[in-house]
């Protein structure tokens, strides 16, 4: 089922939770709404569900305007962050709930309800827990029951609010893969909210990155990572080093030079941000050309197979973070205080366009 969100706005008092959001979700996709807290991602999800009303804008489902539909009529499955299981009902009755509250005319008979619920419990691999109460289940089990309950009413759209937020790391990882497989099997258009970029990258077909009530970028996980549309997206998707300055031809003057290795058609003296991810540096003992930045090693910490390094560059306060494989670092045979040379392999440059204050990004 395809969804089109048109210019949706929502404020709570003076706070603009959503500030003109436009988005299309093709049928059958698994989409992640990714953003920091307060970015409006949960509000958008709740508006899709009909739990919250947009101040203006429209929601079209298969081309039909559903903006005014009551939550009851929308046929969405909503999985709450803290599951919201009915604690006075058994697991079986929790899953059966949506079927039992159907209007008499469309309410399925007992046998059907029983077989449907059993089927769903099998789907989430918890059919042996039907007689228990939510209080007797672990967090991961509750999460799966919440999903089964939402699926019972055969929703046209599945919405999940921070589905793995309340779980510990190991269970979270398992459930991510499981959700992905389940989505592939069922093919229901699904939208989930997360603040964890790794989770969004790993599970979704497409990622929608929100910031301060606006969409920063929409794309596949690879697209948003490799070609971030804005500095925010780049910074949000992982550790990075920021160099600010002005572009002179192909060179960004930022304390010391960070040379852009590809041709870029940029005017002189434009304000620009250049980002280099920690693993995108070459570290060597000698400078083999102009591209090398002299740096002093100040800090090194081994974590598993990688070594996290911090370098000081003359004229720059912030240390430069660099990650190297342990074997490569060992091969250098240096310690703290060593004078080395850094060469960025890949620089992400954003230039501020003076006209509409948008960011023009360019990879290199």
């Amino acid at each position: 089922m395809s969804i089109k969100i048109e210019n949706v706005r929502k404020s709570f008092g003076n706070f603009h939770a959503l500030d003109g959001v436009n988005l299309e979700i093709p049928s059958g996709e698994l989409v992640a709404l990714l953003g920091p807290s307060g970015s409006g991602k949960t509000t958008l999800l709740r508006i899709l569900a009909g739990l919250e009303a947009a101040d203006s804008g429209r929601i079209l489902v298969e081309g039909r305007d559903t903006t005014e539909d009551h939550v009851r009529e929308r046929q969405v499955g909503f999985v709450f962050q803290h599951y919201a299981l009915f604690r006075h009902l058994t697991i079986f009755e929790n899953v059966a709930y949506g079927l039992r509250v159907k209007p008499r005319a469309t309410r399925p008979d007992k046998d059907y309800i029983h077989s449907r619920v059993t089927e769903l419990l099998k789907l989430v691999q918890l059919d042996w827990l039907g007689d228990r109460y939510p209080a007797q289940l672990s967090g991961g089990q509750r999460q799966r029951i919440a999903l089964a309950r939402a699926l019972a009413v055969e929703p046209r759209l599945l919405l999940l609010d921070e589905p793995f937020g309340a779980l510990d790391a190991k269970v979270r990882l398992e459930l991510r893969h499981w959700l992905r497989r389940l989505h592939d099997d069922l093919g229901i258009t699904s939208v989930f909210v997360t603040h964890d970029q790794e989770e969004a990258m790993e599970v979704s077909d497409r990622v929608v990155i929100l910031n301060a009530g606006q969409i920063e970028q929409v794309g596949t996980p690879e697209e948003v990572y490799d070609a971030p549309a804005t500095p925010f997206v780049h910074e949000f998707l992982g550790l990075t080093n920021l160099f600010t300055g002005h572009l002179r031809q192909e060179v960004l003057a930022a304390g010391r030079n960070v040379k852009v290795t590809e041709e870029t058609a940029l005017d002189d003296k434009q304000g620009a941000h250049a980002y280099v991810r920690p693993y995108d540096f070459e570290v060597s003992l000698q400078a083999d050309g102009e591209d090398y930045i002299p740096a002093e090693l100040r800090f090194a910490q081994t974590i598993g197979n990688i070594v996290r390094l911090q370098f000081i560059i003359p004229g720059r306060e912030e240390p430069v973070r660099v990650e190297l494989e342990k074997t490569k670092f060992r091969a250098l045979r240096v310690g703290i205080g060593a004078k080395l040379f850094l060469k960025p392999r890949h620089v992400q440059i954003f230039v501020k366009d003076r006209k509409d204050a948008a960011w023009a990004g360019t990879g290199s």
Partner: protein
Amino acid sequence: MPFSFKKRSVLPGFGLTFGYTLFYLSLIVLIPIGALFLKSSTLTGSEFWATVTAPRVLASYRITFGAAFIAAFFNLFAGLLIAWVLARYEFKGKSILDALVDLPFALPTAVAGIALTTVFSVNGWLGKPLNALGIHVSYTPIGIIVAMIFISLPFMVRTVQPVLEDLEKELEEASATLGATRLQTFRRVILPVLTPSLFTGFALGFARALGEYGSIVFIAGNMPMKTEITPLLIITKLEQYQYAEATAIAAVTLIISFVLLLFINWVQWHNRRKYSL
């Protein structure tokens, strides 16, 4: 270790405070209550039985329990409604309304008694219109029920209100996304969560109404066999120096109160154990 039943702790003062608690509890509560049961045991079994099942005593049980039950039942609805409105809606004057709910806790029962009697008397603010409708409140069992409603209303409101306030909004939202109407959500999601507190509020209010004296004696008329409540009968026996009989009736009342207290504790314990997440 002076108390082997206690877990180790670095904090001092357990012996002193625990000892004093037991001492004071025994002196003020346990010994006096014990004296009551001791005294009632001076009657033989058949004497005791004859006393506590005398027609006038039975009539007082009937009127007291009957009125207390009706009052608690009324408050089940009135209390739930008031708790709902206070917990869920914002409106002008809400905080005054909220504070007023505790009036029966704060207003001395004798004051409540004469006030209710006056309000519901033949020429009273509410008594006059009710009288015109043929409903006589003062000096009838209805008067007893009215006084008991007054005295036990806050128990219901204050038991249900916090549960309603703590009820996660997500439960109702989940129910709505699953297609339930508002009424279905209330019946299937909210009411079951409230049930233990409704039970508790009912039992607390009922127990309070059973023992109530001050607010009832003025409005009840106190006619033996008709509008004489059990606490008043105990006082009457006492004034006639029939100590053993007064004590026997008191013992029966007390045992019923204890059973109610245990029931309330059991409901709360059971509920916590089974459903709390």
